[in-house]
């Protein structure tokens, strides 16, 4: 489905050379939705050449393990191209998901956007 024909699922703001991504949906759940979010994120890296991504989860209050797989693949891609992925503003409950799965060891997670911008 062409990007212009479907609902926007992320917003991107450029802060210097960092692409700050906000999620539109409060729940990141079903596979089709996750696929589209993933497509948008990979487009930032592969087509637009962005190498510093800061994902701001302040709007997200629920996500499942299906979304974790997409984040891992994005992390792998960023590593391949010499870029950096940082996550911020993750709620206490969702942070538990990252901690239990030990993905907090693999992914760079910081408290807030300001800290994230300073971590590149």
């Amino acid at each position, binding site marked *: 489905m062409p990007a212009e024909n479907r609902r926007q699922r992320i917003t991107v703001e450029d802060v210097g050379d960092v692409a700050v991504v906000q999620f539109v949906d409060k729940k990141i*759940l*079903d*596979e089709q939705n996750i696929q589209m979010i993933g497509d948008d994120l990979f487009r930032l890296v592969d087509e637009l050449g962005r190498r510093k991504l800061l994902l701001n989860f302040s709007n997200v209050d*629920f996500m*499942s*393990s*299906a979304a*974790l*797989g997409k984040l*891992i693949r994005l992390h*792998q891609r960023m590593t391949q191209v010499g870029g950096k992925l940082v996550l911020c503003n993750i709620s*206490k*409950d969702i942070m538990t*998901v990252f901690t*239990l*799965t*030990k*993905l907090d*060891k*693999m992914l760079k997670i910081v408290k807030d956007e300001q800290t994230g911008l300073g971590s590149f």
Partner: protein
Amino acid sequence: MTDPRTAADLTVPSDLAEVRRVQDDIESALQAHRFGETDQFAVKLAVEEALVNAIKHGNQMDPAKCVRVWYCVVGDRFEIRITDEGPGFNPADLPDPTDDWNLEKPCGRGVLLIKSFMTSVDFVGRGNEILMSKVKSDPTE
């Protein structure tokens, strides 16, 4: 307004959109029984993972197959049983997703989260049925 349903026995088509409807009903039941936000998150996550597993891996998204969902909330305890029509699986066969070698692999995280967030979890029968419970947390903790 009718009381939120605190017990239900549903037959759900193998359609991921149906998961949302079941989740909404369960959320209403938990709120009616004053489960806290963190407990609601835990139950919703476990039910999401189990229902998606049942529809996707159990029933292979076959529209001719259904998932049976039974749940109830009694006092401080939520219980749910989810049964699919698939061949079942042995959870012991899943790789440990927290092992360094498996961190980047896609499988096993859902079951890990279910076991972590729920009070009790049992795989029943040939492994095509999961029985889970969540006891309300002490709000003073």
